[in-house]
């Protein structure tokens, strides 16, 4: 374990020394990307309501992380395969996962300024007054690791010439067909069902609002991405939140208006009897405004 940690530290150092000259450029690009998602996507919807603004604001870092894992990581791996770096590093006595973790860590750190600033700008732009919940960090890591693992596997398994179009296709598909920036209900029924299947077996639990999991207990985030989504880590502190909701360490998507999940920020046990998620949303009482 000690050796794995040492190897990880040294590989991160190696990556940093190799790319330190372009680190600022990378951070600026990530920043522009995150801002582009916040501002650019809002142009598609001329009259943003609070719900859509929340989706866009919290979706921007999620999409940035997904694009990091699905485009930047495979591009790096493909380039490394072409110039022999991948094979060379694989001859060192280092566990494969350590090598992947070192790469992802570097890109994650490069991503942090952009992500933070994008959230800040979204907060100011839409007047959301977001507050960070305790789940921000683990969720941030989970998104990055899951998307990076997919991108890494594709780049390792495919030839470099093939990996790039395939990962771009996957990234575009996720961008368009994952309810990260919009609610699940907008998806075509078939895709919606796919998302629900991918959520199984936790999806029914969320729907019933009976999970005891610290994150899932009050969240029914409508995407298989949600366990790895940054969104649950952020919640709006504006409007007229109930005292109990405000005091909750994390009241993810369920507290947000328009979320396709019916739980209130107070958790399943405090849901109003007889009020489904959709009816609550229709009546505009699904969360704070």
């Amino acid at each position, binding site marked *: 374990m000690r050796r794995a940690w*040492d*190897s990880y530290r040294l590989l991160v150092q*190696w990556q940093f*020394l190799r*790319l330190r000259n372009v680190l600022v450029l990378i951070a600026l690009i990530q920043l522009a990307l995150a801002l582009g998602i916040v501002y650019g996507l809002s142009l598609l919807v001329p009259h943003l309501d609070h719900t859509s603004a929340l989706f866009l604001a919290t979706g921007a870092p999620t999409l940035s992380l997904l694009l990091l894992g699905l485009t930047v990581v495979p591009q790096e791996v493909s380039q490394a395969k072409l110039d*022999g770096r991948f094979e*060379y590093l*694989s001859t*060192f006595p280092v566990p494969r996962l350590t090598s992947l973790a070192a790469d992802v860590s570097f890109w994650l750190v490069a991503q942090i300024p952009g992500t933070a600033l994008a959230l800040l700008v979204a907060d100011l732009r839409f007047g959301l007054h977001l507050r960070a919940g305790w789940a921000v960090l683990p969720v941030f890591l989970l998104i990055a690791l899951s998307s990076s693992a997919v991108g890494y596997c594709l780049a390792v398994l495919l030839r470099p010439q093939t990996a790039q179009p395939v990962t771009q296709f996957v990234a575009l598909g996720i961008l368009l067909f994952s309810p990260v920036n919009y609610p699940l209900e907008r998806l075509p029924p078939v895709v919606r069902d796919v998302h629900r299947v991918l959520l199984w077996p936790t999806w029914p639990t969320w729907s019933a609002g009976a999970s005891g999991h610290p994150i899932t207990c009050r969240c029914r985030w409508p995407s298989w991405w949600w366990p790895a989504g940054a969104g649950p880590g952020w919640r709006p502190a504006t409007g007229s939140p109930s005292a109990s909701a405000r005091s909750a360490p994390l009241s993810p998507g369920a507290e947000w208006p328009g979320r396709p999940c019916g739980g209130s920020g107070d958790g399943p046990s405090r849901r109003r009897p007889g009020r489904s998620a959709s009816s609550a949303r229709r009546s505009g009482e699904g969360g704070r405004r």
Partner: protein
Amino acid sequence: MLLEFEHVSKCYPGDVWANRDVSLGVEAGEVFGVLGPNGAGKTTLIAQLLGVARPTSGRIVMDGVDVVRRPDVARQACSYQPQTQVPVAGLTPMQAVTLAGRVRHGRGPDVRRRAHQLLQLLDLGEWERNAVPLSGGVLRLVAFCMAAVEPGRVVVLDEPTNDVDPLRRKLLWQQVRALADRGSAVLLVTHNVLEAERCVDRLAIIDQGRVVATGTPAKLKAELRAPLRLELGLDLEASSPPFPAFVRRPAATRGRVVAEVAVADAGAAAAWAVGLQEEGAIVEFLLAPASLEDVYVRRVGVSLEEDASAAGVG
């Protein structure tokens, strides 16, 4: 034997055989050369040792452990200099060599000391702490240092002298020898037959994926039973002198004649060449026994000529 290849074969899709039934053994403390023409399967053989490629059949055993099944053992035991350049852009040679040694689990102070020592021994002191773009030769020497700073029980060097200038190449061969003297088994892949002859203890010649000869350089040369080689250096505009009967198969190019002389005629040939030099008919001459290059050409050249003629006919 520390390292043994046992009937290793590697076949790629399309029935392309990179290695066919290769069996070799390398002892600790020896430099073992692997010689062969381009595409002979040398690098593939190394890739299988390092766990980067998997043999189609056969075993690779290191200290009794089949490293085909346990590539982690091979990675622990082998340090490697690849044929391609190593990823050191943006790093100083000192940083690159130190990082490589630390990743190979070397102790920090020991690695730094050894890295500095190696860079000095290879006359790379002026670049030691400069992260400027380095020339191909310097990069290759840095790559060697990265393999040698914390050497494994087996050190694998794939074409270590490519792009390196003659003076530093000499220093590099000294360090290759030093690695073996420290107890590592050095597996050396090279095209540089003449220089390898002075460095390797034993060698194998690989052609078209097969081992066509193995042994010490002296043994292989003795097996060749080759005549002596006579080389005459002429002025560029001078014509070849008439050859006596004991000078056989003379082949003249502009300014140079290469011929064969029987060992029994060595004295007469030397006297004849000295006479020509005194007359000013030639500039210099060389009378030498068969070299490893002659062995190599004899073993590999036939198949290359056959391939070339087959391609010409086709």
